[in-house]
């Protein structure tokens, strides 16, 4: 069975399980797939779903990029410098364990209910997890390959981009994957608490009306987008990074 069929089959099984339970429970608290689809079509064509989705996606994208760049840079520095690592290790553990909600609330209180405060709250939540992963990668970088760069007197730029960084790609990919899912969850909370648009805000409104089908429709929409990102961006990137590494011997 090809992997595509495997994934499709999994989706069908999930959908039919949901539908089965909805029939059994037969309650408005557990709407069937058809009702969710109906609600999706309504919100998509007649509601603000497109606007909310694009607003949320923009926030996710901006905070994702900032968090990844900062996290990768700090992670590399902490991975290669023992002293810097000792200095900032405690700080890292503290930031890593501050509840997301606390950072969000503090950012809103200190900087006001503005867009930059929202983005900053998300970034602060995400950076430490990226740092932790990249640091592990930078710690186990192959000394032997770096020595090749040294012996052949490669420039710093060449050493970094052709010898050092490629060893971190798997770690960067892993943290990007984990990062995207964490970030969009946090963005929703940020929107729910202090923004007047976006999916988080919409979900809050739907919650006020107990519109469960609407909530599920939004969830469905967002998960579809994540699946598209996974298939269009992450998977091709995976293949690119795995080049030369997972080949069988000729």
């Amino acid at each position, binding site marked *: 069975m090809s992997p595509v069929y495997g994934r499709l089959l999994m989706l069908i099984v999930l959908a039919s399980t949901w539908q089965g339970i909805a029939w059994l429970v037969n309650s408005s608290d557990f709407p069937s797939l058809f009702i969710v689809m109906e609600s999706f079509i309504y919100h998509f064509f007649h509601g603000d779903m497109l606007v909310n989705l694009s607003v949320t996606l923009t926030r996710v994208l901006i905070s994702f990029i900032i968090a990844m760049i900062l996290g990768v840079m700090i992670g590399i520095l902490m991975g290669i410098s023992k002293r810097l690592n000792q200095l900032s290790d405690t700080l890292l553990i503290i930031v890593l364990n501050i509840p997301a909600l606390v950072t969000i609330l503090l950012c809103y209180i200190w900087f006001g209910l503005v867009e930059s405060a929202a983005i900053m709250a998300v970034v602060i939540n995400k950076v430490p997890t990226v740092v932790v992963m990249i640091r592990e990668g930078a710690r186990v970088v192959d000394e*032997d390959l770096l020595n090749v760069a*040294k012996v052949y007197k*490669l420039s710093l730029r060449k050493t970094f981009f052709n*010898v050092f960084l490629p060893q971190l790609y798997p770690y960067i990919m892993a943290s990007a994957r984990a990062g995207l899912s964490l970030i969009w969850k946090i963005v929703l909370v940020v929107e729910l608490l202090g923004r007047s648009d976006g999916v988080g805000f919409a979900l809050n409104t739907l919650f006020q009306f107990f519109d469960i089908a609407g909530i599920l429709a939004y969830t469905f929409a967002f998960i579809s987008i994540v699946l598209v990102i996974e298939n269009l961006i992450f998977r091709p990137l995976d293949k690119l990074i795995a080049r030369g*590494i997972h*080949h069988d011997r*000729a």
Partner: protein
Amino acid sequence: MIALDVAIKDKYYANSDLVVLKEIQFSVKPGEFVAIIGPSGSGKTTLLNMISGLEEATEQTLLCNSKPLNGGKAFPLGYVFQQPRLMPWLTVNENIQLVLPTTQETIIKTLLAQVGLAGKGDYYPKQLSGGMQRRVAIARAFAVNPELILLDEPFNSLDAPTAATLRLLLADLCKSRGSTVVFVTHDLSEAINLADRIIFMSHSPSSIIHQTTVDLPKPRTESGSNELAWQAKLMNQYPQILSGSLCTD
């Protein structure tokens, strides 16, 4: 051309109080092919690492043409490590291109043909056999047009025919470029086959126990009668020399 003067005293293993090189002193003439033989663990790799500037000792004098060697920063240096050490994410072509300052497609092509890897330039290292990867590493070392070449048991664990081909290739390349060579091995017949002079090292903490010039005409053969006789004579004189001792019993 590069002449080397090496003097090292008390080199310790990294983060350890174990002395690996006790007292090493030797010179290499310009264009000379010097083989270093010693039992495993005698610090041969450490010695090459020190010449290439990857490791240092507190008491060391490394001179190149009477000036500080400084890890060979002033001239092109080729180092064939014990493992091929190719970047797995770069193709064969890209691996060689990496050590070159400018794009040199023809040079890479010629070199690959010389090491018998014509047409393999677009393969990734993992797609090649171990012997092929070593040949790429040798091509990479020669690509920089090195004035000094360090080789660390480059033909170790290769099958005999491949090793023989590569030895011929190495001798050819060295001869055509006039490079100075320091070649580490634990295979005496390989050293006799290739070297102008052989330096024997003791067990660690090591020092040099014997130096001898291989006064045989080149080209030499793997198991020619002259070479075998030379080896027999040496082994007769110092039966324990390969285990790092000059004792006769």
